């Protein structure tokens, strides 16, 4: 790949090899005055990921210095995200990088997408549709579901795909969308990097603005306020489960798990959840406590409640409302309601 392209897709293996070959140590990346613009651009990347989208320079006509700045801004941005090491930021940042890449990929030639796919171990063959002359991408179904399972629209479900002998054919735009998922998970899973203390200290001047933006975004979003449990903001599935438990109806195992992990994740204690089950017809305090502690992480794994997709498959999705339509996860529903509530309260305050 041309270095101009590497600057636009800095997460590919070739780009990190290229940057490695330039011989910039993290120290140099932080101290060299010549790289000041790369550092500023790195900070900008992170801020843009929180406030909107990461803007990319146009691939044609950029001069060499600008290309280098763009290329080196990426490792620096990753160092900054790692210094802060906040899950919300990491997710937002990875998503924004991936979305920016998607916007560019849609405009590229099929061969380019195919080559990029190889960097993610996705072997896609291309075919021309004889009728429409569009180029289609042919993927093995395992590569397809690894990327498509996280997508919410039902059209991405394997059952709605024209699968033949283990292969699925998709359009260029769809392939670009799947690559976005691959990019997002690669970036997200590699973060945080372990940052030595000296480096972390040297980054301090860049962190204040990011932290400020992050706090602002978080309070808008209602993140970090799960400490206070607001039961009126629970999604309908959880409300229904609680109502059933209170009425003495036995829950299916999968629903019991969903409800328990949900309540634990939003900040209820094991004792509080045990107390909720105290009315179950087959209540056995010791057993219940043991199971809840297990879900809470006594074995070393903390469990998240199942996604809406999984809830649906198990028949645990109950009476979805308007907010459910734009939600993938019961916890997402809760934080969204929380955000809406905070927003309304803020508006009220303003008026008052």
């Amino acid at each position, binding site marked *: 790949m041309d270095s101009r392209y590497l600057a636009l897709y800095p997460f590919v293996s070739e780009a990190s090899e290229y940057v490695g070959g330039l011989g910039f140590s993290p120290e140099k990346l932080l101290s060299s005055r010549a790289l000041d613009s790369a550092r500023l651009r790195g900070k900008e990347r992170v801020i843009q990921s929180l406030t909107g989208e990461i803007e990319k320079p146009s691939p044609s006509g950029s001069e060499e210095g600008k290309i280098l700045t763009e290329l080196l801004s990426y490792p620096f941005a990753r160092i900054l995200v790692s210094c802060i090491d906040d899950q919300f930021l990491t997710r937002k940042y990875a998503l924004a990088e991936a979305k920016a890449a998607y916007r560019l990929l849609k405009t590229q030639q099929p061969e380019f997408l195919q080559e990029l796919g190889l960097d993610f171990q996705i072997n896609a063959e291309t075919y021309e549709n004889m009728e429409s002359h569009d180029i289609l991408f042919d993927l093995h179904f395992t590569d397809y579901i690894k990327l498509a399972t*996280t997508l919410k629209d039902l059209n991405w479900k*394997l*059952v*709605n795909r*024209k699968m033949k*002998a283990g*292969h699925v054919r998709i359009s260029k735009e769809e392939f670009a969308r799947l690559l976005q998922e691959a990019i997002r998970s690669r970036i997200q899973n590699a973060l945080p990097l372990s940052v030595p203390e000296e480096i972390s200290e040297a980054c301090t001047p860049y962190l204040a603005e990011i932290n400020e933006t992050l706090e602002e975004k978080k309070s808008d979003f209602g993140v970090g306020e799960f400490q206070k449990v607001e039961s009126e903001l629970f999604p309908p599935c959880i409300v229904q489960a609680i109502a059933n438990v209170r009425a003495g109806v036995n829950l299916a195992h999968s629903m019991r798990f969903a409800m328990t992990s949900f309540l634990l994740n939003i900040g209820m204690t094991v004792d509080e959840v045990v107390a909720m089950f105290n009315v179950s017809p087959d209540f056995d305090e010791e057993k219940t406590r043991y199971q809840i502690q297990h879900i809470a992480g006594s074995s*070393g794994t903390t469990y998240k409640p199942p996604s809406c997709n999984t809830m649906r*498959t198990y028949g645990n999705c109950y009476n979805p409302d308007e907010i459910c339509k734009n939600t993938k996860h019961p916890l997402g529903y809760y934080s969204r309601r929380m955000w809406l509530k905070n927003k309304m309260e803020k508006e009220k305050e303003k008026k008052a």
Partner: protein
Amino acid sequence: MNFKTKYFLKSKFQEYYKTAEIHIPSRLEAREWGFISFDEMPETVMRRHKSFGSRGEVEEYLAGMAPAHAYHSVAYYTYPSAPTMKEKQWQEADLIFDLDADHIPGAPNSYSEMLDHVKKETLKLYDLLINDFGFNEEDIRAVFSGGRGYHFHISDPRVRSLESAERREIVDYISGRGLNIEKIFYKKAISGDAGSENVRMNMLSPESEGGWGGRINRYLVSYLTDLASKEDAEELFTGFKGIGKKTAQKMIDILRDETQVELLRKGNMEALSKVNKDIIQTLALQAVNDMSASVDEPVTGDIKRLIRLGGSLHGKSGMRVTTLSISELEAFEPLTDAVVFSDKPVKLKVIRPFAVQMKGNDLYVEEGTQELPEYAAVYLMCRGAAEYGS
């Protein structure tokens, strides 16, 4: 289950394991093993987190301990005998499907009919795995569980790294769950015809298309042409809600005309545009019902599950967990082929009346002391319906 019965069953199982052909899973050193012994019965105590280094070790353990139930993990671990899942370090897992009479709608009550019913389901699953998922025959292993169903093991390296959610997507495909019928029946705008830009043609997925679309086309065409070829076709068609004599006759004409049927196969539905949409929808759903397989979702989604060892005995029936190739599966009669014990008479005390069909014999036993062939005696004792001796 009293002490004498336990002792008898254990010694019978021991005898079996001395010469049994055990189906050792691939990469056996990376598997976790679990066993339930007769000793603690009726308590079910699973001894798990075991690991073995060789076939010889497994066989020695089975012949020595003669467990009532033997399992290995579907997963491959770095440290299979570590006490917690986290420490085991999951690497990958075979893809498993479980077809169990308990989870298949409309399964009959008698054991032999129930097993027949499940077997039909296995053949549907097999068809999907080969044609839609493109697995090779050698990559699919069917296993009769020794109880009420079958397991399918797929060890194709490409599926082993799949996570739970991805495996559930496969289950949804196999059971037709979440299928968007609207995408299969659609309208296509026709361009080029001067002055009639608004013409929209009724279409469905062509028969050659992959996935459920092509399947539904093939089902619809074969179902409808089959009806139309019958002598009482008009009566059959007017039997559908909303189809009158005129429409019925028109449909029959179309469906008996090979050129028109060919258009249908290619996805042009115009010929059936007069037919009520609900009828077509109902037939499409019928197609999905007919070709989908009811696999037990949580089993496939569980990438750390223990599953019965091929060649071991099922402690609740005394029958063999039987590994089968596809051609063997078609001819397989579980109540004969999975029975391993002899015809030698054994005295036992029957606790409750019991009926079972084994080795082609209808056995019906009353309460009280009886003499039965060994295989049936073992079965009854394993089921908890009899105790050993008189």
